[in-house]
């Protein structure tokens, strides 16, 4: 076995040249392409990451806007609710006031109706009492009744102030009204008694008014003395009305 030094040298040169050629035409272009593709991929990934970051920021903005919408909606709802509550309270107050007014009006109407009814019944009762008193008066002794009423008239005159009695006595004419007609003797007797009570001799004119039921009344410009059942019934009716 021997070594061919020429072959050794040629093979060394051959492999060295092959190293250079493959480095020039294979390893370097492919490695450069790998690096370029890697840079492109990294750039693409970076762009995607940037886009993702932008999308996240946009999403955050959207979420923020949504939160603003929600807050605004809550505020609007709260304002609407407050407004509705205020309107409801006002409406309730109005309705309550109106109801109170209607109740007051109804109470007043009821009271008025009651008063009217009471007045009507009082009037009816007075009319009935007058009628009953009139009928009862027809059964009484006319002379005795007239004497009693004359006596009450005289007491009423005497109860008047003296100045009023003197003024009445000085009048030219007084009117004496009776329920039934008096004969001349009775008129003279009444005239004398009244003149004595007044302290003078006034001219007295006698008239008849059946509405008096019973009694004798005296009227003048300065004096008026009511002395009849009609006046008594009217006074009693007023007293009952005030008492009710």
């Amino acid at each position, binding site marked *: *076995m021997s*070594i061919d030094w020429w072959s050794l040298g040629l093979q060394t040169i051959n492999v060295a040249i*092959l190293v250079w050629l493959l480095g020039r035409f294979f390893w370097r272009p492919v490695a450069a392409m790998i690096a370029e593709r890697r840079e492109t991929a990294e750039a693409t990934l970076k762009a995607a990451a940037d886009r993702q970051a932008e999308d996240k920021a946009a999403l955050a903005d959207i979420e923020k806007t949504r939160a603003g919408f929600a807050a605004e909606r809550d505020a609007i709802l709260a304002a609407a609710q407050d407004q509705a509550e205020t309107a409801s309270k006002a409406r309730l107050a109005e309705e309550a006031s109106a109801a109170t007014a209607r109740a007051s009006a109804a109470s007043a109407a009821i009271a008025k109706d009651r008063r009217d009814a009471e007045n009507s019944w009082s009037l009816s009762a007075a009319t009935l009492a007058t009628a009953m008193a009139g009928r009862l008066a027809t059964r009484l002794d006319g002379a005795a009744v007239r004497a009693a009423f004359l006596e009450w008239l005289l007491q009423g005159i005497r109860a008047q102030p003296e100045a009023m009695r003197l003024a009445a006595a000085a009048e030219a004419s007084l009117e004496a009204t009776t329920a039934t007609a008096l004969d001349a003797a009775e008129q003279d007797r009444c005239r004398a008694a009244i003149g004595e009570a007044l302290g003078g001799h006034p001219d007295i004119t006698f008239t008849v008014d059946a509405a008096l039921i019973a009694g004798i009344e005296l009227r003048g410009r300065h004096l008026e003395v009511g002395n009849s059942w009609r006046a008594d019934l009217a006074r009693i009716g007023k007293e009952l009305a005030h008492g009710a």
Partner: protein
Amino acid sequence: MISPLSSVVLFHLGPVPISEGVVVTWGIMAMLVLASVLLTRRLSLRPSPTQAFLELVVEAVDSQIRDTMRVEPGPYRAFIGTLFLFIFVANWTSLVPGVDPPTAHLETDAALALLVFLAVIWFGVRAGGMRGYFASFASPTIFMVPLNIVESVTRSFSMMVRLFGNVMSGVFVVGIVLSLAGLLVPIPLMALDLLTGAVQAYIFAVLAMVFIAGVVEDAKPSADDPERKSP
């Protein structure tokens, strides 16, 4: 049968004898360079299946360099990758009838080992300068200088003998079996020879990376030695 230990001279260029191994090497070179030119003409950002395969090869070489040498593969890719590709293709030329692998001849293996020896010096000087390279012989101590000098020669010699022995023995065995048993019997041995050829190409490339990485690491200026600057 011609002894695989002998080199057959096919013709002479002047005084220079051109052996069969050299001619086959030229053929391999032409095929590899032509294929490289043709395949790398249309590289694009959207790789074709062929481009993807080429990138896979380059990425595999880069990955091996990173894992073995712990450096960036750029300066070493062409040398290591070409060593692997050439030895791989050369070993597999035994599939071509009538062609002996160039690596089955001692001159080719010696040339490859010589290139590794020179590459170790080149990358060592490149990493640490002349002073750094020669200082690497004193690693880890000054007393290791003689042993490291002997080792730098003997490890290249061992690479040569390992590749030559494995490839030559395969060719030798296949030749013997073929001469004794006929046509189909050597096929399993030929398949085994292909596997051996691929493994030997890988081993040769890995050993070259280990030797270069060792001298590059030792030749690099350390932090506590400010006088040694990288070139």
